[in-house]
């Protein structure tokens, strides 16, 4: 049963997977409660453009993905506040714009082998030792920032107006959440895939919220669901040879369905 851990690549996949399973819903809950769920999806599409740049130039895909998602996060924040554009349309523009850019870049990089489907949907065999170090280190940084800022992030998520009146730097805190979301998206590409990371940030959170708990308990439960999805998803995808991202997200979907059914009124 546990010969799975004899393989170095599986150990790496589990290491990276656990790190992502913890940070995705931790940031996701702040996006979900503010009705920004689609930001994670938009950033996921933006990360594709970063991966395409890596394919062209031969650099580390996680790093280039992170640079593009963080830049896009800044762009989205600026457009949402400084111009008179509806939040949703800003997201739509970034989402399709970056998809268009990636399609061209991937076209140019033809010949330099990139497994496009492993980028889109995740592949546990592609996690290099360097990737694991990078993912785990940055995941720890993200977790520490969230822990330190938790009271302030909560206050701003609940009520921006009053937070501002009482002297919280609302715009800065919003930008911090966006940057952390952008970082998590890039970190998750290897395991969950660029197109499915949004689901891991949103689904465990929405599943946990069905249980009508306090904000803090909801966050713990969301992390538990997320860990369950990633760990069982990795096992299943290994034994049945399935795409890891798809398997993980389907398990997350199951936790959501289960939560929904159990909490029917």
């Amino acid at each position: 049963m546990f010969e799975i851990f004899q393989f170095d690549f599986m150990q790496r996949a589990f290491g990276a997977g656990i790190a992502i399973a913890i940070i995705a819903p931790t940031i996701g809950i702040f996006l979900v409660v503010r009705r920004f769920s689609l930001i994670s999806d938009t950033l996921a599409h933006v990360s594709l453009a970063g991966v395409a740049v890596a394919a062209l130039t031969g650099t580390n895909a996680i790093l280039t993905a992170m640079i593009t998602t963080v830049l896009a996060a800044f762009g989205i924040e600026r457009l949402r506040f400084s111009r008179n554009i509806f939040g949703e349309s800003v997201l739509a523009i970034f989402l399709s714009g970056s998809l268009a850019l990636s399609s061209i870049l991937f076209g140019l990089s033809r010949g330099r082998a990139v497994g496009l489907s492993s980028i889109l949907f995740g592949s546990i065999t592609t996690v290099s030792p360097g990737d694991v170090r990078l993912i785990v280190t940055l995941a720890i940084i993200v977790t520490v920032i969230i822990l330190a800022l938790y009271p302030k992030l909560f206050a701003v998520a609940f009520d921006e107006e009053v937070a501002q009146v009482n002297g919280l730097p609302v715009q800065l805190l919003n930008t911090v959440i966006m940057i952390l979301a952008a970082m998590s998206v890039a970190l998750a590409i290897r395991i969950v895939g660029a197109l499915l990371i949004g689901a891991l940030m949103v689904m465990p959170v929405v599943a946990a919220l069905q249980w009508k708990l306090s904000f803090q308990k909801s966050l713990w439960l969301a992390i538990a669901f997320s860990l369950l999805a990633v760990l069982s998803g990795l096992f299943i995808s290994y034994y049945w040879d399935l795409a890891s991202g798809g398997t993980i997200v389907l398990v997350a979907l199951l936790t959501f369905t289960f939560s929904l059914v159990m909490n029917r009124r």
Partner: protein
Amino acid sequence: MPKTSDIIISMRDVSMQYTDTPVLEHLSFRINQGEYVGILGPNGGGKTTLLKLLVGMLHPQQGEVKIFGKPFRDLTASERSTIGFVPQRISEGRIDFPATVAEVVLSGRAPSLGWTRRYRHDDLAAAHSAMEQAGIEQLHDRLLGTLSGGQLQRVMIARAMVNNPTLLLLDEPTVGVDAASQEAFYGFIKELNQDQGMTIIFVSHDIDVVAHEAQTILCVNRTLICHGPSREVLAGDVLEQMYGKKLRSIVHGH
């Protein structure tokens, strides 16, 4: 003429406009420590803009607003935390926000935490005493989504009170609150004013409520139409001019 130290808010010749039409023009007034002020005016008369100026969400385009004797941007963090603000009718997003009463009340302490500190015992104690004062301690672990309008309003007050404010500003505090809870609510506000000397400023479009509750009335309809003790204001005919209707029943009823 009150002493300078008693003045908690002063506005001098403040004007604001978003488009070509001015929202507020040449407003000047002072509010003293311990006053209970009702800001009255028709919808669209600039009440909310005025309140946003008072809590520093807007800065005056012309003129000067001072709180505790300083412009808003010069207030220290601890001075800002003693301004309790209860925004207009809890918006949809806040009603079903997945958090308990205790979590929301405690969040009022977040601004004074510094950059890395988490909540400590004194924060929890402050939240507990604010909930007790607002009469909602038995609701502490209830989710916001399960509360009535009156209970929600008390949660918002408790959050504002968690830093022991010297000044409490409320925007249309009882919209969407049933009549019985409304009366209990104003009774509670009056206690804060009389027993603790808290300065209360609330905005309402409801003449009835302002006439019954506030000691001082400030009428705003683009310009400052009246400002004075409520009896004097109600005895005159300014309100009739502003609203275009008779108000004798209110004045006589009290």
